[in-house]
């Protein structure tokens, strides 16, 4: 039992790193545009497909393919901001939400269309092989790299938000009009936020893609679905806290793995059940989030 729990925790933490990356992007965008971004996971899948095309079809070196994938994700993020979010900035949240869902569906549709001939694909890992095996759970180098990237990204974001550009972003998110008055371009800040968020989504995509085979919509509802866990992680952090989203992602990953324990082996989809129950409990008992001291003002 202890071994099993240990495996669940270790697997959960490494699976949760992907959720945390997605959740960080969701929190960034929620703070900037006040919208639940349903296209966040699709930034990842799009980046993954672009990287795959670069590496497998055009035979580029791996690092160039990764860069290409991330660039594609950022381009998609910027295009979303310009073409969908900016024109809709005065409409209601439901319209914005539907807009991002539309972006996600459009991306999935294009992926299905373009991968028609070979729907199931697989990409080589950055470094093949198993790094170590705590409790017998095989942790590959890919998992390890994802985790390290998450930590690096989190530190980089923490430093960035203390730099002038980062402070400008925070100012514009808190009070747009006042920020404009002191000379911050809200438009540029909005684009920067979406670009960074898309970069995080792209990282989640290119790093988690090689773990399994992937299809269109891989991160949204495919085998590596990270959209709902990402949202849950963001909610655990109260939707506005970056460290909260980070730890929330890891926690959600562990909780989901508990659904695969042998006591639940009779139940199909144990992971989804655990997530649903956990979300209900959290939202009913602590709607302001788990990792927040005081309630976030609306």
């Amino acid at each position, binding site marked *: 039992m202890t071994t099993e729990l240990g495996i669940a925790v270790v697997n959960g933490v490494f699976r949760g790193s992907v959720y945390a990356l997605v959740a960080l992007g969701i929190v960034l965008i929620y703070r900037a545009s006040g919208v*639940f971004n*349903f296209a966040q996971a699709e930034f990842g899948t799009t980046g993954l497909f672009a990287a795959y095309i670069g590496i497998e079809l055009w035979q580029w070196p791996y690092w160039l393919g990764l860069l290409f994938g991330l660039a594609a994700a950022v381009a998609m993020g910027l295009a979303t901001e310009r*073409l*969908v979010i900016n*024109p*809709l900035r005065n*409409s*209601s*949240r*439901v*319209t914005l*939400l*539907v*807009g991002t*869902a*539309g*972006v*996600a*569906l*459009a991306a*999935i*549709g*294009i992926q*299905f*269309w373009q991968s*028609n001939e070979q729907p199931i694909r697989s990409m080589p890992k950055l470094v093949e092989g198993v790094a170590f095996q705590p409790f017998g759970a095989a942790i590959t180098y890919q998992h390890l790299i994802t985790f390290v990237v998450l930590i690096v990204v989190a530190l980089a974001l923490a430093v960035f938000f203390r730099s002038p550009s980062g402070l400008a972003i925070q100012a514009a998110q808190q009070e747009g009009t006042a920020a404009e008055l002191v000379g911050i371009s809200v438009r540029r800040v909005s684009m920067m936020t979406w670009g960074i968020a898309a970069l995080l989504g792209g990282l989640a995509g290119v790093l988690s893609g090689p773990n399994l085979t992937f299809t269109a*919509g891989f991160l*949204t*509802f495919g085998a590596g*679905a990270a959209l*709902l866990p990402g*949202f*849950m992680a963001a*909610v655990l952090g109260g939707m506005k806290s970056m460290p909260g989203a980070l730890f929330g992602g890891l926690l959600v990953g562990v909780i989901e793995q508990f659904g695969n324990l042998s006591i639940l082996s009779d*139940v*199909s*989809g*144990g*992971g*989804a*059940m655990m*997530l*649903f129950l956990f*979300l*209900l409990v959290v*939202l*009913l008992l602590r*709607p302001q989030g788990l990792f927040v001291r005081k309630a976030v003002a609306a």
Partner: protein
Amino acid sequence: MTETLPETPEESTRELPPVEAEQVTEATRVTEAVDDTDDDAAPFRPGIGGWIARGLIWALLAWVVFALPGNILSPFELGVSDVGHASKAAIFAIIGLSLNVLIGYTGTISLGHQAFVGVGAFVSAYVVVDMGLEFWVAVPIAAAVGGLQAALLGAISLRLTGLYFALVTLAYGLFAEETLFGITAFTGGEGGKNVPRPLGFEDDYTFYYLCLAFLAAVLWVDWRLMRSKGGRALQALRENPRVASSYGINVKAYTLMAFVVSGIFASIGGALLAQQSTFLVPKTFSFQLALIFILMTVVGGLRNRVGVVIGSVVFALLEEGTLVHLLHLEGILDSTIGLPAEFFGLVIGPILLLLTITLYPGGIGQQIAPIAQWLRGRKFDIHAGKVTEVEVTDVRA
């Protein structure tokens, strides 16, 4: 009218106790703003030619809805599969109306509607196949179970509002998809279930009319509900829940009621869907389907029944490229941009959505407003249904 004649019903309500009267006037004002039924003093009456033209269009519409799919008086030779698509379109319209109750009337968004539809489908299939009962028994049971699960989920989670509630429905949808529909004894598992159609409606043509009858019933119930006290309360609380509750409207109870109504409609749609496909697998009810339901409702135009029905029909036909096949556009699309017909809906549908919400926030309901007005015997006014009238109010967050 109301200013000059003190004896109108609206004036007399002023005599009632203040809370009640305020509530009524508030609600009527909202209804008027939405429906735009009251016009200026001198109503426009079309001439004989105008009436004939309108009658012809009405007849054409009736022909498209009733006769065309049944190959009556039709120049096209529609096959059985085409009628299947027509039935599916009618069922999607029911689902769209169910979602409209939620998003349109109460301003809460459900991202797990595929679960509601799926529960209806599997309960109805279970009653028909495993218990050996009639379809006519299965539909009320499915509706009851659908209403019950909505009531349960709503009772637990409706203290959350707005986007958080949407998140719960999203998690519920995935939970239902993977856990509930994964129970083999209930759903038949991956192998699926073969659902026979009710007696007298076995063939696709008669089944289409059955779906149409259900759609008409749902439309009628929806219309009557929105004219009731509860419907007016919903409209008031969507505009501003705090003001509504200060007028004595029980916001939570009415939202829960709308949630249950939506669940019942969706289950009826699901029960029909089980019969329509005749072969039911859990895989059908994926998150993608939930997204498509939301797209078709919003593109159709919230709070506009005709718009929602048209939007649902368009999206039902866009799936699997039916519309492309019907219009014989496969060759053009394939040769120009290399888009195969079966991906047409997947690629074009969302782009259509993005164009609609950025250019016409009122959706198809807004776009067809001038024609709809004209058909109801008014002047043709290209500016009818302009943005201010169909303003999409906020989800409470």
